[in-house]
């Protein structure tokens, strides 16, 4: 008799499971349609434009392609873009981690306000971000005349471009870390402190390993945006070729000069830099996973 009851229950639970499975498994044509739409979308909006950039870049052959990249103005744009990334990414790394750490591990008044402030660059249009700096540091701005008198150039020079880029890319690292660190809570840190770890040790051996992936992801996004930022940089750059033109601005200039092959050549280099960033991220992830696996074996 007992067997009969259990069979009935089993049948019921199977039915129940079947329902659950039904809820997550659509019929094959729906699945195919959805995957198809996804692939089409991916192909049309990501792969095709990316391919077009390279095809257009090489339209006039390799010689023209290389000539566009070794042109002094292009070369200085490339150097400026790398400088922007090299300065703004570490800055955002340090301040992003500090902000996320402060917000998720401590209680203090004005915390919500700080989170809102961190989000500000996301909600403000990049053009406005650039204008903010013109209003503050421009000749008619609050500090403009003082900088002018002391012959310090902020706007329409490299410092202004760096400031605008840092402003625009600020949320990437912090925004990536805050939900992650909030989910992890602070028990591990508290345990470390009870065991006698000091501030830096807690961060280095407890917090950092936990947030490493989020951090790297944030840095990758931050880097991509820093190299590619157009709007804010365009406002504060002054468009001086060979001096304050970053790669995105240089692409626009070349395009406007009917120099399409060169424009796409520089654009393709920008795309390659983005792809390299992705490769680095993948490599770091793979490497870290291996180290993790080795540690487990030990």
């Amino acid at each position, binding site marked *: 008799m007992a067997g009969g009851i259990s069979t009935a229950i089993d049948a019921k639970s199977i039915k129940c499971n079947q329902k659950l499975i039904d809820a997550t498994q659509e019929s094959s044509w729906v699945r195919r349609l959805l995957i198809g739409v996804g692939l089409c979308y991916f192909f049309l909006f990501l792969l095709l434009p990316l391919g077009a950039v390279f095809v257009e870049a090489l339209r006039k052959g390799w010689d023209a392609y290389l000539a566009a990249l070794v042109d002094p103005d292009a070369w*200085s744009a490339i150097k400026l873009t*790398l*400088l922007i990334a090299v300065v703004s990414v570490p800055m955002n790394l340090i301040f992003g981690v500090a902000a996320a750490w402060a917000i998720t591990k401590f209680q203090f008044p004005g915390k919500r306000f700080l989170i809102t402030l961190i989000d500000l660059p996301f909600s403000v249009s990049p053009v406005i971000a650039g204008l903010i700096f013109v209003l503050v540091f421009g*000749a*008619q701005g609050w500090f403009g005349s003082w900088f002018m008198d002391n012959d310090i150039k902020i706007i*329409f020079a490299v410092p202004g471009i760096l400031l605008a880029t840092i402003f625009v890319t600020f949320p990437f690292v912090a925004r990536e870390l805050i939900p992650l660190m909030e989910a992890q809570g602070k028990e591990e840190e508290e345990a470390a402190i009870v065991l006698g770890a000091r501030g830096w040790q807690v961060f280095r051996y407890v917090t950092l390993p936990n947030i490493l992936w989020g951090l790297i992801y944030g840095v990758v996004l931050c880097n991509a945006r820093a190299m590619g930022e157009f709007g804010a940089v365009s406002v504060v750059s002054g468009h*001086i070729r060979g001096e304050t033109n970053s790669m995105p601005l240089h692409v626009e200039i070349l395009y*406007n*000069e*009917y120099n399409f092959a060169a424009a796409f050549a520089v654009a393709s280099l920008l795309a390659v830099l983005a792809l390299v960033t992705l490769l680095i991220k993948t490599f770091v992830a793979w490497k870290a996973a291996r180290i993790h696996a080795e540690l487990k074996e030990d």
Partner: protein
Amino acid sequence: MKTLNLRSLIGTALAAVAVASSGVASAQTSILNVSYDVARELYKDINPAFASSWQAKGNPPVTINQSHGGSSKQVGAVIAGLEADVVTMNQVPDIQQLVKAGLVNSDWQKRLPNDAAPYTTTTVFVVRKGNPKGIKDWPDLIKSGTQVIVPNPKVTGNGRYTYLAAWGFAIKNYKTEEKARDFVKALFANVPVLDGGGRGATTTFTQRNMGDVLVTFENEAILLDKEVGGDQFDIVYPSLSVDAPAPVTVVDKVVDKRGTRNVSTAYLEYLWTPEGQEIIAKHYLRPRNAAVMKKYAKTFPAVNTFSVEKLLGPWDKVMKEQFADGGIYDQIMVKR
């Protein structure tokens, strides 16, 4: 192992900063020419020619940097602190803004020949090959179903000249301001998109294939026709157009501060030399030098033009009436 990685990473980063910044800051004497959008090719040729002639006269080498964009944006940048030694614009009011801001002396038009405009151009029509819509003159632009591409008159000299050319045509032909207003209103009702720079409008017309007619400067039109079009376009000269001289000046406040007045003035004067005028003519801009003009007579057909100041009054008045906030341009754009 981990610390080593971190250290070498920081080291590499610092090295990269050093390399990059050494390239960004160079010590040579340089002057900055802040200019309007479609003058880029011209100054790309003028700059090295001037630099070598300047050096040939026994002066230290000089680099001329260029910055181009929509006129208003460029003037705004100079007022906000972009250190332009010279500005080369396409309209007097742009430089008047700099006078108002205290950057340029008010006598700037008297310091150089031809009211400080080394060349002039005019507003013409570019149509698609064979002129399928039969566009001959201004009235053809207000026909319904004709799409007109014009750069934004609010922010570009190019667009402003187009607007004023249409206005002047209407005033001359229909006599009353009321009718002129209706005419430009009908014209701008046919404009699907207003680009922020002259070149932007050109790419809208050529690359995005929008519009039946592009109204732009003659030099931009010929450039487009000869070097880009591949015989896809025709140029149409209207019965009356506007004379569009392009004024230049040194920015007094900047050159005095940077000690570059001599080289900057020489740079502008070079534009009036026969070599400078020849380069100007090669870029399809109408030179002032009679001999050079004669040599390139084939490029520049005779056109019937009017001067804005003679027909419509002083620039200050024209700007205030037409383009100030709430001016006639704003009114026709709201009501279109």
